[in-house]
């Protein structure tokens, strides 16, 4: 059964079982590998994408449930890595292994879209379900604050 949705700003039609999680549609069917598999149970955040602007876990989102909706992945967050969160991530040199960072960035971008100037407590609440095993948390916190400044024109 064909399922249509908007992927990174462009219409997308796929023909897969509706129960198939969006994660595997992105990675295995469409070859968009920036969204990562980490747990398969919405426990780690590595697969975070935006569904109509809201952060969701692609690993537990049946593709049938997104018909007609807008999906943004890390590849579509900006055309050239220029989203404030991406620039802040580079400025703060956040990634180590980098595997969780697509999910971290997508969660942070959604946080900033809702809360322009997050406090440390806001960051904890929004980001605590995104696991990083390299322990980049201190840099992530710094980068979220930096991205908030960039968005408000306060830095570069």
């Amino acid at each position, binding site marked *: 059964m064909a399922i249509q949705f908007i992927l990174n700003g462009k219409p997308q039609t796929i023909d897969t079982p509706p129960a198939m999680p969006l994660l595997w549609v992105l990675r295995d069917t469409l*070859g968009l590998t920036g969204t990562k598999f980490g747990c398969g149970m919405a426990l780690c955040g590595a697969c975070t994408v935006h569904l109509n602007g809201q952060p969701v876990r692609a690993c537990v989102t049946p593709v049938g449930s997104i018909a007609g909706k807008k999906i943004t992945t890390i590849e579509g967050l900006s055309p050239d890595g220029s989203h404030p969160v991406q620039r802040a991530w580079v400025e703060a040199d956040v*990634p180590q*292994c980098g595997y969780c960072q697509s999910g971290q960035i997508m969660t942070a971008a959604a946080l900033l879209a809702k809360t322009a100037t997050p406090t440390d407590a806001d960051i904890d609440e929004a980001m605590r379900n995104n696991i990083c*095993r390299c322990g980049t948390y201190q840099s992530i916190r710094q980068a979220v604050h930096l991205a908030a400044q960039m968005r408000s024109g306060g830095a570069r």
Partner: protein
Amino acid sequence: MSAATQLDRRGFLKTSAAAAGGLLVAFQLPETSGAAVTSASLNAFVHVGSDDLVTLIIHKGEMGQGTVTSLSMLLAEELECDWQKIRTGFAPIDPAYGGFQGVVGSGSIRSSFGPLRQAGAAAREMLVQAAAARWSVDQTQCRAENNTVVNTATNARLSFGALAEDAGKLPRPANVTLKTADGYSVIGKSHKRLDTPEKVDGRAIFGIDVRVPGMLHAVVARCPVFGGKVASFDDSKAKTVPGVKHVVQISTGVAVVADNTWSAIQGRNALRIQWDEGKTASVNSAGITQSFVEHMDQPGAVAKKEGDAEAALASAANRIEASYETPFLAHAPMEPLNCVAHVRADACEIWAPTQMPSAAHRAGMSVTGLKAEQVMVHSEYMGGGFGRRAADDYVAEAVQISKATGVPVQATWTREDDMQGDLYRPAAYTHFRGALDADGWPIALHARMACPPFGGLRNGVSSTGVEGVSTMPYGIPNILVDYHAVDPGIPVSYWRSVGYSQNTFFMESFLDELAAAGKKDPLELRRRLLANQPRMLAALELAAEKAGWGKPLAAGHGRGIGIVNNIGSFTAQVAEVSVMGGKLKVLRVVCAVDCGQVVNPAGVEQQIQSGIAYGLSAALKGAITIDKGRVQQGNFNRYDVLRIDEMPKVEVYLVPGHAAPSGIGEASVPGIAPAVTNAIFAATGKRVRKLPIAVGELG
């Protein structure tokens, strides 16, 4: 990395040396410093192209530790090129050039510091010689800087690219002079990582992202009990799952191969398998602890003996004893295990996120029966490794599945597969006895240790089972460390910082117990016992000073120390915690490290932060438990890890020095657990002797 990752080294060498010209310097990066260099063991290459591009092909992997960045810095220091424009690639394993390829023991910088700078200097000298010949001047009149050679008399310049072809025809200079530390312009200064831009927009290709034309996706059903085997299986339902293409039995279980990973998982769910569970099916965690305890009454194999600990204990003014225990731990890297393999009649190609390309290569040969030169391994970015990716089990599985199906296959482990099919940090148990003199100073220490061994036994001792205690830096006159190898059949292996990870918790905790028993300040006692360990002591003094050791704290707060000398480095941590209302909070960690000559200070700080998070995660939460031979945890809901709101404020201080660089990736893992538990003791008077910390028992 993306530009060069897929470079075929044979093609690279042929192209560079013959057709396209340019300058190629091949050299060897040994596993550890001091290994012999032979012509067959070249495993790294520097190429300067006539297009001005400098390419570094290295044998090391990147799993987050920043190796690509710091190795590029080492090259640039001597080659006088712009290090940020160096293209880097991982050398595909190729037996024609042999040599060990792997990244273990925090050895990348340690082993590369000399050879890589020498290769850069050799390439620079050849470019300078070529320029001198072009200008018909003496080469003393020429100097390399910023990707060019300058004629110092005329200020004329020739780019490296313009000289590369001529330089490539010159013999490699036998001796080169390397800069001394006072002349460094790149080394020792903080630099951003080269791999960051591609890791913030989804471009970076990890092993799990490899896509090969015609590739299918596989998952494997493995016996839930370690050592178990397939007795029989029924795949009739699995084969009806849409997308499933093949079901094949392999040595470790039954593989389901499908159009996509999800279909493969659905197919696996539909398999019916009878397992022969084997003898491990009766093993459980309580029984493992019991077997450790039973060994505590009997002398073990002697790992260290100085003086006469028994006699000193017998005559001491004051004696204390205590038992410590730590659980099995999973590595749980964010990228679950995976590997792509493509086996043909006469070739086997492997794409693996591996810490040990050499082991992956051997696995490919072993499964296929092909010759060394018919097996090619591509190293891919790793989404964490922590020691797990030093093994080759997941490579061998992928090769078996491709061999059986005849198509390129990506074998992916689900999180549950990864957590329940790990090679774990061993569970361990240690009983200490300590003796104090009449003034309260330690005069004897006996540690009786037990854990599952790996890496072989020497005189009955597993070095990975005792390191951290047997290697203690403390000047105690009478020491006995003995060891029991107790193997319950749970697979164990290297886990970031290996034996130090649990044994430093044991050692540093009991040292604190000795301090308390002798009514000494924990810092004061360590100072005295480290009198002959100047580097360890200097790191400790720096950490203590920066942490404000001795300054008053609020009620319910405490500070604790954890020190370690592993991977050649000296690391001291002071943790500050609060224990209030049944809640433990690790507020601040001050870490001082002496790792010799620092190449990239920013990289060192990243690794220290990382090790603290990894070690703290284990201390607060990590436990793999066994029931009926099965691991009871399968995902992050039952094997929780550190979250952003639990990350303490970490401050890193480097002890300045120009000693040979030592390791950093594992330096800060061991000390954090005892720093925290010693701080808990300072805050509450309660001694934590078992990990993970049972916060509910702290009151």
